[in-house]
């Protein structure tokens, strides 16, 4: 695949945008501070200089307006990549997302495509308080018509973003704030990663741990710790919640007989519960222990770093859950 370098998650996303904008003049970028400032986390850095203000558009603080504009531009034939600075803000523009973007293709009998990509940031751990620390991808996965992408590594981030831009349907692309600085090998050339294909981040035989985004790293940390105690953990990263690679999870559970789902989103009616339900339903006979979920309790994320740490899932809590289901001395 040509040259592979170690770059950060941010750089991988930036490279994906650069390459897709070069490849396809219909790709445009919109959002708050995406132009001159280069994005508050630097993902859109250099795009304005390279592609000009017609394709890299700084917007006012008006999510309902510019997300709606992006959906309209997509309907009219462009491939907008629009940034919702924090997922926590979706409340002001949700109608554009879940009722307009998500349903238009269906309601027009397939005569229209909405190839919009909404990039947004998620996650706690930065003491950013209740309105800037949420995950919320479960809400988007809950409604029909949206593809939900949740990368965990620089490699996946680049490949999945390119796939998202080229996909003809609305996607929500979730970037965990704690991942931006994570480094990893990324090929220089453009490449795609298909949606709905999980990645086994670590192979194991005693328990299946399903995790996405930053929690993949916590799960791997836990797996490495548990390995020292003779517990073999298989870490599976679905990479997209919609479409969801349930076959990969079921295959793994059939092997291990145990499942722990790690999910930074609120516990109630969340992604973890859905995965647990699928496994309980479709491979009940293979389970040798109750399914465990490691999630964030359904409470506002505290500003206090101590309290925030208390509620967010982490390697330590994953280890505890794994030990509960594996019960090895």
């Amino acid at each position, binding site marked *: 695949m040509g040259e592979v370098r170690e770059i950060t998650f941010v750089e991988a996303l930036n490279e994906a945008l650069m390459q897709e904008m070069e490849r396809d003049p219909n790709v445009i970028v919109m959002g708050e501070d995406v132009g001159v400032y280069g994005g508050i986390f630097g993902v859109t850095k250099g795009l304005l200089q390279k592609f000009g203000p017609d394709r890299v558009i700084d917007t006012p603080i008006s999510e309902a307006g510019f997300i709606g504009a992006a959906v309209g531009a997509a309907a009219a034939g462009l491939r907008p990549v629009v940034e919702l600075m924090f997922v926590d803000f979706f409340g002001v523009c949700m109608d554009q997302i879940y009722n307009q973007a998500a349903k238009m293709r269906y309601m027009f009998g397939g005569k229209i495509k909405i190839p919009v990509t909404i990039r947004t940031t998620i996650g706690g751990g930065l003491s950013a308080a209740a309105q800037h620390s949420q995950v919320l991808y479960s809400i988007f996965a809950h409604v029909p018509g949206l593809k939900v992408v949740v990368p965990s590594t620089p490699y996946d981030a680049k490949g999945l973003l390119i796939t998202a831009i080229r996909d003809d349907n609305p996607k929500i692309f979730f970037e965990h704030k704690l991942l931006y600085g994570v480094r990893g090998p990324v090929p220089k050339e453009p490449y795609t990663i298909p949606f709905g294909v999980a990645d086994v981040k670590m192979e194991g035989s005693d328990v299946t741990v399903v995790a996405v985004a930053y929690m993949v790293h916590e799960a791997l940390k836990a797996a490495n710790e548990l390995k020292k105690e003779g517990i073999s953990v298989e870490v599976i990263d679905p990479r997209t919640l919609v479409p969801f690679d349930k076959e990969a999870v079921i295959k793994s559970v059939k092997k291990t007989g145990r499942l722990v789902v790690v999910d930074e989103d609120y516990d109630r009616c969340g992604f973890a519960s859905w995965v647990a339900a699928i496994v309980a339903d479709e491979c*009940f*006979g293979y*389970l*040798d222990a109750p399914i465990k979920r490691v999630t964030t309790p359904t409470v506002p994320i505290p500003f206090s770093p101590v309290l925030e740490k208390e509620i967010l899932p982490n390697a330590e809590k994953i280890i505890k859950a794994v030990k509960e289901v594996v*019960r090895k001395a």
Partner: protein
Amino acid sequence: MVVEVRMPKLGLTMTKGVVKKWLKNEGDKVSKGEPLLVIETEKITANVEAPTSGYLLKIVAPVGTTVPVGGVVAFIGELGEAVPEVITQPQPTRPVERVVPEAPTPPPPPTRVRATPRARMIAEKEGIDLSLIKGSGPGGLIVEEDVIKYLEEVRKKTKTGLRVREVIPLTSLRMTIAERMTESLRIMAQVTICREEVVDNVVKIREELLPLIEKEVGIRLTYTPILIKLVAEVLKEFPIINSTLEDNMIKVIDEINIGFAVAVDHGLVVPVVKEADKKSLKEVVIICNELTRKAREGRLSIEDVSGGTFTITNLGMYGIDAFTPIINPPQIAILGVGRFVQKPVVQEGRVNIATVCTFSLTFDHRVVDGHTAAQFLDKLVSLIKDESRLRAVLSVK
């Protein structure tokens, strides 16, 4: 003092007795140990002695009454003494022996084995009874590891501690055979009688029919269809053997359906020729051939193996002379056929070489007695000896 006379318990299985005869009348003087009445149980007739001396004040159970063990049949006391109005029923110390009909006690609810789905899946696959396993999970929950550990343990040694070389799981066919054979011996009183007889006529007629049958239906004639025809013919004269015992009723069956045992991979199946007595030899040959082929190919339907009223089993091809076949329930008899072997036999005062065969008939002694079974074998042998009748039964016309 008034003393009760009770129905005695004369054997482990006795639950009740019938009053057959009173040896004393009310008002008679009796001495302790003197025979008082005669009772009859399912097995024996016995005298009941007076438990004390005095006068037979009252007979509570007249002749013909069935009284549970421990139940009062009479009172003995001094003249003028009052007899209790209410009759005490069987002594409560022996509640098991009560025979008052009651609704059957429902079986205790099965203790639910707590096991993970995965443990259950493996147990089912390996044919393991989970209730034999001690769970190591929370609250005794059986997990996969427990099942695997158990599997390893039970497969290494026998219960008596002997080393095991190989474990062969019981196939469902073997399990069915095991169950049916054990059940057969458990419920029936089986007796086997054997008789050796010259079968030259059968050999001769078979050799004559062989090319004819081969030409007509393209099947090589074996002794199986011949024996089926002969047995069916004899059964017509012995309907009592073509029967089944159900709920204390011998039900004589209206059709003669002969099953014949066929060895298959690791087991045995018994396809049935329905109404063999009404079919010609040729028809029986065709049916036997088809059933045998289906048996070997494992394609027998439930229909093919159901409804048998009598079974023939042949071990002659393995050089066996006589054996004790086990009845295929709910039938009540089975005929074992030994090898056809040449032997010196005495015929009309001279020693000749003849082909002989030993027939082993197992019958259910609950339904018929030895003499009926012996007569049945005798009729079979007579038929074999009577060449013209034999030819009539085995006619291919």
